[in-house]
């Protein structure tokens, strides 16, 4: 029952996670990996994709099994499913590149407890058809990746003078170490939220100006 009724087309289900209900910027979920691994674009990307993979796979499975799982053990079952996929992704990543795996550290394993995944499983996948669940998961996962990259780009650019490892400012650039350090993570995410809030406020203000006033 979600929420969204059947008549709705699949497209909004997909875009919702990207922007309007962006898991990081709007719902403020999964903050730990967001802050911890976003110190470079490549890390952000890897983490985002890993999360995306787990999200899609577990959403699909949860949706498939939604009529089988008894209510009392549903959370436990979801967690087991998610943990399985996380382990799978963990090994897959180790097989692909140990360096990236090392950079992401324990946060790959911590995807298990990323609230986005359990949240989508419970809120959406368990109540929707497989196709819709996968679409939603993909939207959310990409939204998460997008947010991570937003952070990673700023932090890598200022903190290291590079983007995706390519030197941007030249050798004379003095990197801002803070951006790589924990406070930088907080500041950059906070700044992004402020920027979005500012935009939202501004558009609300212009909307209010257009709308004819009731009073009178």
């Amino acid at each position, binding site marked *: 029952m979600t929420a969204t009724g059947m008549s709705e087309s699949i497209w909004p289900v997909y875009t919702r996670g990207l922007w309007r209900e962006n898991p990081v910027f709007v719902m403020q979920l999964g903050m730990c990996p967001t802050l911890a691994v976003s110190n470079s674009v490549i890390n952000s990307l890897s983490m985002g994709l890993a999360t995306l993979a787990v999200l899609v796979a577990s959403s699909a499975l949860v949706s498939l099994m939604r009529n089988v799982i008894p*209510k009392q053990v549903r959370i436990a*079952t979801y967690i087991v499913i998610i943990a399985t996929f996380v382990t799978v992704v963990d090994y897959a990543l*180790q097989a692909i590149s140990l360096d990236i795996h090392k950079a992401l550290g324990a946060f790959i394993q911590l995807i298990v407890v990323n609230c986005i995944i359990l949240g989508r499983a419970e809120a959406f996948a368990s109540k929707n058809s497989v196709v819709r669940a996968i679409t939603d998961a993909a939207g959310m996962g990409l939204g998460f990746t997008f947010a991570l990259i937003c952070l990673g780009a700023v932090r890598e650019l200022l903190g290291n003078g590079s983007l995706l490892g390519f030197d941007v400012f030249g050798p004379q650039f003095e990197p801002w170490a803070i951006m*790589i350090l924990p406070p930088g993570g907080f500041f950059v995410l906070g700044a992004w939220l402020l920027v979005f809030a500012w935009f939202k406020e501004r558009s609300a203000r212009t909307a209010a100006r257009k709308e004819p006033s009731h009073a009178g």
Partner: protein
Amino acid sequence: MSEQAQSNPLVRRPVAENAAAETRKMILTLSSVAALSGMLIVGVYQYTLPYIEANREAMIEKAVFTVVPGGVQKRAYGFSDGAVIPDPASAGFGERFYAVYGEDRSFLGTALEASAQGYQDTIRILYGYSPEKACVVGMTVLESKETPGLGDKIDLDPVFKANFKALDAAFDSASGKLVHEVTVTGHGKKINPWEIDAISGATISSKAVGAMINRSLQTNLPRLLPHVDALKENTP
């Protein structure tokens, strides 16, 4: 809207009238899901294992051959009650070290791991030791969270790295001690070959590296040096 009806909270669930059956269903579901997961994980694990091992091997190799320049081949050893055992079972470094051999299968030295608390967190390094020269011949950082631009120079600063090209580690077997303790001096104050010239502004990280090498040499040389000849012979 069938789904909607199904989870509509206004339709009360029957309360535990069928509790035993429900419990059975719960157990069945969860254990079968868990079993399936177990299967899946094992499958993936076994499938990826060779790749991961290969990756890991490559990484170790790279590190080992950086710290012992000229090395092309290596062999893992473990310490065990006064003996060294080739190719120990457990993975990782830890109580292991590597014997490194050159192009001509000649024994060049060993690569050992050391770790200590740095400025932010524990620093782990791998360093090469050449019994021949009685010197540390190279160092690379395996893991550190030191401040970028400051503490992380222990791995990036060529000047600092130069300290470890030939760091005196002469061992006096009579006393069971290093002839000269490895020490860290202030930036630009290095005089003796057993001193490490600290990075300016990152004294703590520098000192941590010095201290860990010193400690590692002190504990490992007594149990390593007696077996050097064996290492020389046991070429891979």
